[in-house]
């Protein structure tokens, strides 16, 4: 029995009970400070996404840049037998939620591509991943979802280095279900020019933030106008003058 199956069934009933709660957008109950309006903030150009050779559908080599340029991209590493609740499973859930959210946003449809790149090229062959791709191809017009692999670890390694993704095989946890890769969940938001502009972790993988960031990149690229006035939540303008606080601090220090 695979690790994922062993985990899944005992938790299925609990999961179903929890779904209504989990379906709420994270930001509503999570972030106390409102996210800034799209276009009102800047995302750093963290680094250019690395170059490399990947496979999709068949064994014909393709440049990774085919999947990281020309459209806004969300890319995450995964592997099909992953059962880590804090790992690739979270990315999977986030991508599904994002796709569902995009269905409600016609203005953003066709602007975003989703990419999963496997950490396990030995098991996740083009044939294997092709089944995943076909399962998600129905909503390709909303956001195509590409499942990529590589010829081997030799081709995967430079991509991991380039993205700054450290992995280690957990030999004690690996078994019949396949190897278990310890890795830090990272979802990379990549702009149309191929620059990483945000990296989400299991601490910040929030669909509301991802939608805002996507919209911000579209505004920056001139592909979308700011359609509502940007109201800054910055309270600085309403604060007391600097002198008052400084005087208060100095007075208390003297005391």
């Amino acid at each position, binding site marked *: 029995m695979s690790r*994922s*199956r062993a*985990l*899944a069934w005992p*938790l*299925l009933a*609990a*999961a*179903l009970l*929890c*779904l209504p709660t*989990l379906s709420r957008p994270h930001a509503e109950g*999570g*972030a*106390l*400070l409102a*996210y*800034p309006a799209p276009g*009102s*903030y*800047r995302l*750093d*150009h*963290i*680094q250019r996404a690395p170059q490399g050779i990947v496979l999709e559908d068949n064994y014909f080599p393709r440049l990774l840049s085919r999947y990281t340029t020309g459209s806004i991209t969300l890319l995450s590493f995964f592997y099909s037998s992953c*059962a*880590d*609740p*804090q790992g690739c*499973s979270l990315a*999977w*859930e986030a991508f599904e939620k994002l796709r569902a959210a995009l269905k409600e946003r016609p203005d953003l449809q066709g602007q975003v591509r989703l990419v999963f790149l496997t950490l396990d090229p030995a098991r996740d062959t083009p044939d294997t991943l092709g*089944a*995943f791709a076909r*399962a*998600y191809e129905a909503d390709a017009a909303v956001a195509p979802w590409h499942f990529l692999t590589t010829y081997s670890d030799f081709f995967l390694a430079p991509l991991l280095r380039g993205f*700054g993704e*450290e992995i*280690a095989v*957990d030999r004690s946890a690996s078994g019949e279900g396949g190897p278990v890769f310890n890795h*830090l969940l*990272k979802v990379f938001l990549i702009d149309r020019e191929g620059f*990483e502009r945000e*990296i*989400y*972790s*299991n*601490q910040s993988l929030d669909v509301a933030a991802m939608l805002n960031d996507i919209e911000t990149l579209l505004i920056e690229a001139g592909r979308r106008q700011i359609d509502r006035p940007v109201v800054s939540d910055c*309270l*600085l303008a309403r*604060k*007391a*003058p*600097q002198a008052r*606080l*400084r005087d208060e*601090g*100095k007075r*208390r*220090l003297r005391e």
Partner: protein
Amino acid sequence: MKRLVARPLLAGLVVAALAVAAPLARADETCLSPYTAALVKGQEAYLHVWALGEKGLGDESDKLVTVDVDPKSKTYGKVVNTISVGGRGEAHHMGFTDDRKYLWAGRLDDSKIFVFDVGTDPSNPKLIQTIDDLPDQTGYVGPHTFYAIPGRMVIGALSNTTHDGVTGLAVYNNKGEFLSAHPIPSENGGDGYGYDIAINPKKNVILTSSFTGWNNYMRDLGQLVNDAEAMQNFGNTMVLWNLKSMQPEKIFAVPGAPLEIRWSLKEGDDWAITATALTSKLWLISRDEKNEWRAKEVGTIGDPSKIPLPVDISISADAKNLWVNTFMDGKTHLFDISDPEHPVQIYEKTTGKQVNMISQSWDGKRVYITSSLLANWDKKGADNEQVLRAYDWDGKDLHLKFEIDFFKEKLGRPHHMKFSGAVGKASP
């Protein structure tokens, strides 16, 4: 085929169940960035100490000192590695990258940042990069706090190139390339000073605290305290930032140089605590009855009239206890903060002639203390002991397990500490 297609749905359900059944582990140990991977939740194997070089002592250089702290090891309590980085530039604080493979260590005087590979072999760190463009890129000097966010490092600086202290945050990618600068507000209630950074990603919040500029922190402490005008040039504020936009949202009056900031690690909590160096107070940053963030004085450390100078704090993983070191009287205090609005001191011990940093293990059973504050602020003569002390905490008393005299060993002045697990033993 059917099995494969069903897997995504199944994976989603498993995630959904675990997300509720098992609260997300807040990554901290107990003061690291919440984005940091591979927490050391069991016995730490190595302690990395960033030490200031001392003229006339050994090679006189600042250095990263690695100590074996595994009681089962044959070299327990011994220095197993040193890396001298050259020169003396006021070595101060360190921070791991998000993957915990690299340790960034800064110097407050020459603003150099040294990047060590501690992930490949923590017993034998390697210096792999030196970053020296912070002043040129930002106008800031004195890189103090190194706080990891995914793929990047947020650096909290202490001062600026004019040395008066108006400073900010700088963001670098993990390759050491500068990305952006974010000034700490110096108007409309802000004083522009910087010190610590503490992020609560679930609340989209950054907190920063404030110390003083290069003109003060590089000056002899005896001269400084007798200069009334210079003593006015300390931070009296904390700033609450919007994490996503990296823009300040609110400024709190927290008089007396608020230094280290610690978020409660307890799931569901959303408060942080800090200590003010000059006024010797504990301050709580939390929400009021109107759900507004506020800073509130909640306790006193020692006798403020004697200026004990609380310099470092360490919160327990369950947010019930807070260690506080007071530099001037060499005391280590333990506060019960299970009611963070009303901290109560429950233990106190003199742990040195001068004590500065304090770090506890995830389980709270081990506590490490170092002695050096700043080269020009450390005590003089016989009181200038420079030691690392390791204690066991049994819930009632600190028991000394070993100490290393950094002067005797010709290592310099020990300041900041970080843990490493043995390779492959850290919790994922």
